[in-house]
């Protein structure tokens, strides 16, 4: 049998076009002859591939037609895993953002550092110790020449004071009170009286909570001050009372009159009075007196946001603090004066008496 005839038969067989008789004969032939059987399989597979190709093309055409109807673009936008804009921004610009953030943080820190706000101090409250170093920096060259002359006159350290405040005697034998913030951080503390004499002192007790520090003059040149003319008021003073302070905002003693305007200090601090009084750096630690010459407080700060508003630690806290001084720290007896000798005097006369007991506190550190 020729090949083409066989194929023709296979085609008819596969297409089911044979008569039942032909079919029977062909199947017999297939069984007998393996070559024929293999040929049938091979042809079947091959022609089925042609069919499959056709089906595939048809299916692809159908799918493509369907695909035309899909709005791929919109879908794509919806389905992209869009991170939130902030994440995208970070991905795209993170290096720039990092640099900007670093600069910002640095700037903030620097600003805080320069303005002194890095400490937990409120910028609206200014402690009134004078930063002498800064004030005098330009005068240093001039001052040095003079210093030699001055030093021969007064006993005292050769270097300029770093900080300065005011202090006043609480007893005639050399105990002086000032603000803790004045002496805080200093190596050595000197007091200078109205006559310009400096005495070396020792800090014997500090009470940071009430911003108080107690000094004792340990200089051999120091002689007894004589009886203290003022007393310390135990009771609270009334609002509206006329008051004044005396201290060293500059190089000489200055008095500042004012009035007691509030029973509480900065941010409602009950240990302080609020005052209407012109005080300046250097006034810190100065005595606050009423008209009768009673110490009613110690100046320790002013508000920076309002002109003329100052604060003073109430005298009863001073008394409490004095009673807390450990006995070991006291080499001499500390007895507070109970006899007020200024009550009947006019203010200028009071001040004349007072000035001998008020000192400039000079703080040095290396």
């Amino acid at each position, binding site marked *: 049998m020729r090949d083409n005839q066989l194929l023709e038969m296979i085609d008819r067989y596969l297409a089911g076009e044979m008569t039942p008789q032909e079919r029977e004969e062909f199947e017999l032939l297939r069984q007998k002859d393996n070559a024929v059987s293999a040929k049938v399989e091979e042809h079947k597979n*091959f022609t089925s*591939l042609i069919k*499959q190709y*056709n089906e595939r093309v048809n*299916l692809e055409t159908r799918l493509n037609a369907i695909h035309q*109807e899909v709005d791929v673009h919109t879908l794509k936008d919806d*389905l992209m895993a869009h991170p939130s804009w902030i994440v995208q921004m970070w991905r795209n610009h993170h290096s720039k953002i990092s640099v900007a953030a670093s600069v910002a943080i640095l700037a903030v820190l620097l600003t805080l550092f320069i303005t002194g706000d890095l400490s937990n101090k409120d910028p609206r409250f200014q402690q009134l110790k004078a930063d002498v170093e800064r004030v005098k920096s330009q005068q240093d060259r001039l001052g040095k020449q003079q210093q030699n002359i001055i030093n021969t006159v007064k006993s005292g350290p050769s270097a300029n004071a770093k900080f300065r405040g005011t202090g006043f005697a609480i007893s005639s034998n050399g105990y002086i009170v000032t603000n803790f913030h004045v002496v805080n951080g200093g190596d050595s503390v000197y007091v200078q009286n109205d006559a310009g004499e400096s005495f070396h002192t020792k800090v014997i007790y500090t009470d940071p909570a009430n911003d108080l520090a107690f000094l004792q003059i340990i200089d051999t040149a120091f002689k007894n001050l004589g009886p203290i003319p003022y007393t310390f008021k135990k009771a609270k003073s009334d609002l509206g009372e006329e008051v004044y302070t005396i201290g060293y905002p500059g190089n000489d003693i200055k008095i500042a009159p004012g009035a007691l305007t509030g029973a509480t200090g900065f941010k409602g601090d009950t240990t302080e009075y609020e005052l209407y009084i012109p005080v300046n750096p250097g006034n810190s630690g100065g005595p606050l007196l009423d008209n009768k010459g009673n110490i009613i407080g110690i100046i320790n700060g002013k508000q920076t946001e309002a002109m003329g508003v100052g604060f003073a630690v109430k005298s009863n806290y001073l008394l409490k603090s004095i009673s807390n001084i450990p006995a070991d720290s006291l080499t001499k007896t500390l007895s507070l004066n109970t006899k007020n000798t200024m009550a009947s005097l006019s203010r200028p006369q009071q001040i004349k008496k007072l000035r001998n007991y008020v000192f400039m506190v000079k703080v040095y550190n290396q």
Partner: protein
Amino acid sequence: MNNQLNVEIPSDSEVIIGILNNSDSVLKKLYLAYFPMVLQLIINNNGDEDEAKDIYQEAIIVLYNKIKRGDFELSSKLKTYIYSVCRRLWLKRLKQLNRNAGNIKDFEEYLPVEEEVERHEERDMQINKMGEALKLLGEPCKTIMEDFYMHNRSMQDICERFGYTNADNAKTQKYKCLQRLKKLFFQQ
């Protein structure tokens, strides 16, 4: 994927019956139902929308043939099956393109379909070879082959269409064409 709620998702059995009955509308429903899922997979794994289309259509063909052969068991959801095939196909494509084939960012569960995809690709290769061979065959052989083997036309029809004077001539011509097609097919 809540923005695909407006697309009608046909039930799996509806799809299977529809495909067995050559339903165009069911094929369309099927296509529209799961394309977004595959688009999402591809475009979020270093592909574009055209590649998504290719991969998706291939997966639909795999599923279509599987259903036509009658061996799709409803043991897994159609959705999972389609996703798994697309995922496998895309992994292979990524490897071929030397694009990151390490790990894929997944959006659905998937099944192991490696063997099936393998078998599909072998068959696909044969079919493509056939396509190439048919293209090279030339007329009138191509039409004769298509008419006879694809469209199941009788020799009588073909005789009349090509104006052969008798069926034997037509048969001889068909035989010659088939031999040529085989030659072209196996030469590749």
